[in-house]
């Protein structure tokens, strides 16, 4: 079976690189093809890379607190670019400060993200959902 493709990156002006390197390693190890854009990635770069590689999902990390400002409109831009249905994940420390996760999750779902992960989610959890959402069975 062909490997599913993920575009991975840390959005906005965010430079937190450690988690990104580990996610790259973990997703690759789990059998995905990872297109890792690294840190400081704009919405446009995510979408271009997804179109270019015909990716199955965009996995956005945001650690530094500006996630809410940075992620707004990503789903709409995907639609405009013709990949309106692509699977969209976001995870990390995606808002400023310690906030109740349920509220945060709802806000990001309203923005069009399919799944939202809170601080310190392990890569394994993301992998399990990716397999489910991309219908991967072994």
């Amino acid at each position, binding site marked *: 079976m062909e490997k599913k493709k993920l575009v991975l990156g840390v959005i906005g002006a965010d430079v937190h690189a*450690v988690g990104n390197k*580990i996610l790259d*390693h973990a997703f690759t190890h789990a059998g995905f093809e990872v297109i890792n854009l690294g840190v400081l990635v704009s919405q446009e770069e995510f979408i271009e890379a997804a179109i270019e590689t015909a990716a199955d999902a965009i996995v956005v990390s945001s650690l530094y*607190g500006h996630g809410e400002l940075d992620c707004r409109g990503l789903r709409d831009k995907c639609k405009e670019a013709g990949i309106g249905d692509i699977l969209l994940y976001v995870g990390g420390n995606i*808002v400023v400060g310690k906030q109740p996760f349920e509220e945060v999750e709802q806000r990001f779902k309203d923005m069009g993200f399919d799944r939202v992960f809170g601080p310190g989610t392990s890569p394994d959890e993301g992998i399990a959902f990716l397999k489910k959402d991309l219908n991967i069975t072994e």
Partner: protein
Amino acid sequence: MELRNKRISDDDFQRQREEVLTQWPTGADVNFEEGVAYQAALPEHKKFGKKLLEAKAEGRTLTQPRAGVALIPEHLELLSYLQDVGEADLLPTTIDSYTRQNRYQKAEIGIEESVKTGKSMLNGFPAVNHGVKGCRQIIEQLDTPVQVRHGTPDARLLTEICYTGGFTSYEGGGISYNIPYAKNVDLEKTIRDWQYVDRLTGMYEEAGVSINREPFGPLTGTLVPPSISHAVGIIEALLAAEQGVRNITVGYGQCGNLVQDVAAIQTLQELTDEYLTKYGYKVDVTTVLHQWMGGFPQDEAKAFSVIAWGSTAAALSRATKVIVKTPHEAMGIPTKEANAQGLLCTKQVISMLQDQALDPNSLKLEKEIITAETRCLVDKCFELGEGDIAVGTVRAFAAGILDVPFAPSRFNAGKMLPCRDNEGAVRIFAPGNLPFSADLLAFHQDKLSARAKAEGRAPSFQMVIDDVYAISKGRLVGRPR
């Protein structure tokens, strides 16, 4: 213009300055003479460098938090609280990430959104957008020295505004605010831009106003061996001194093994003094220990432990100051209450341990190792630069001679891999191109073999990952599960 470790000429400086001050409208309010006069008129107890030197003379360790929000009234409320309730000895103004990337337009939107939503939508204080007047409100309403802390590759405009605005200390450097904080920014350019910052500091110094400068010690905050961050700190101190800076605080991010941490702070002071003197500079050097800079545990009680352990290293090493984490670290930017808790926890440890020290004999080996490694690195940079440390540093990064683990910058080789030994000290698993002597490399290998044997597995990237997660999972050494 070619990069050189040479004082910027007045003409060159003025030419740059004209351009810098037009990068955002608030640049127009900057006036050097008026800025000097404002700083000179500040009361003594608001002068950062002075307070540091007093603490150093008395052997005390000062506490300093990180803090910054989008709007001035809220920022003032936050800092007052940390001063009055948190008993902070020194205050920060942490700059938001848009400003750090010179995206002032985005910062403006962040300010507007913050006004609208009633909560800070920025992860720091957008000092450029608030301008000179905004900064002075901060300085005037507080009774404690305030430092600007950020992570800005090109900080020239920010510096101009903050110095005229009355801040008496300024963090950053051409290496330490590039390699961990940027992806595509040329190292040569950031060193040059920070020569501008240092020259401006030198000009204030020459005008009789001493502003404290602080290279950012912890770099990526993740398994950085002491000698690597020492080398960067010493090089940035040399670059700053050449531009006329006279009050420098060199920094180190706690690694977690007490002996290594205490040895690191002591050698950092000794080696920085040594190199500055050797190259003919007279500088007042102090030290800062950053409490654990890697991933934190989510549980607050556990986070307090990590804070206390960092405070222990700071106290027993007699660092001049300690940068404090909070029980919210793993979750997000802390509330003012959580920030004050981190400060109070730290203060208790520091004053409780004020009268104790580690046996100097027990530090000997570790100090020798760090010293020898740091000399290998710095001397090699001088060699590569044919005597010019600025040139040598750029070449060293290109060659992986200086190499910071987990750094996002493509100007960093990323070939060196660190890993903890069996006692939790950070060692080197894959040396990449580090210019260490055979002896030193053998030392690291022995230490890691001992751990590998204890765990019954060979060192590998998985071991490194386990070490990255370790503290947040309650351990120091990432043992196999």
